[in-house]
């Protein structure tokens, strides 16, 4: 799951080394992923109206379902 998000994000941004994916255990075994990219690249992983981020969430859902898990994805501001 993490590798899927990393792969997509790295393929879409300019600053590849700023891509960071962290994961936390959420309630009910749900996995919470956070994606951080350079500020200038945020638009690229979010997309117009959140289109890119939503497509990533759909693919993540499939990957999670393979492990009988549920996962969420948030794109967050860089630290």
């Amino acid at each position, binding site marked *: 799951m993490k*590798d*899927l998000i990393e*792969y*997509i994000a790295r*393929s*879409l941004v300019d600053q590849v080394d700023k891509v960071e994916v962290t994961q936390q255990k959420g309630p009910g075994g749900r996995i919470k992923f956070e994606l951080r990219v350079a500020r200038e690249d*945020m*638009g*690229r992983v*979010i*997309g*117009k*109206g*959140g*289109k*890119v981020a*939503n*497509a*990533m969430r*759909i*693919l993540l859902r*499939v*990957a999670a*379902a*393979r*492990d009988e898990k549920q996962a969420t994805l948030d794109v967050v501001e860089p630290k």
Partner: protein
Amino acid sequence: MSQEQRTTLEVIAPTVEEAIQKGLEQLKLTEDAVDVEVLDSGSRGLFGIGSRQARVRLIVKGEQPTATTPASIIEEDVPNHEEIIWVSEKVVSDLLERMRIKARVKASIRPSASKDEEETVLVNIEGDDLSILIGRRSETLNALQYIASLIVGRRLNRWIPMIIDVQGYRQRRERQLRMLARRMADQAVHTGRRQVLEPMPPNERRVIHLELRDHPLVITESIGEDPHRKVTITPKRH
């Protein structure tokens, strides 16, 4: 020739780079043959709010008449078919591998059928039990297609339309949709009432609109907002 030839072209695209690329393709020139003037660098609109398209003006340099630009220069910049196929198969395979889906991926190029239609990459995915890849209302398939085409476009430095299909699903679905369109059109005519179809993604709505475009007795229209946007079929008034 004392008078400098100054052909200019204004292009609008999501980003400055894309606008320049688009303009150069239209002019069939390479970047060193033009001066670029950024009219509006656009804004990506973080979180998708208030995003504005970029606008650039390309000014063809006088010494380089457009008509005689050597074809070889253009070809070097345009990815060839093998490269498009290879990159498309690679990207889709990489994505599927990370989604833990075992499948075979085969890409091909569909040449443009008419002047206003671009050539398209067709990617077909074959394997066992791939219904998970299609999803409800082909949501997953469309997400995969969208992400893959973005990545491929970036790798090739050129956006090329991509259609991903799973075991011929889209073809079968298109046939169903055409039949549905004709059936609902008949119903609209017989009952004299507007028929509202199920919500559909844009590519499926397009099939319905196209199928009934030349229908003498009905008109089609889409209502609502994605992802709940629906096609309506209304009998024409006489």
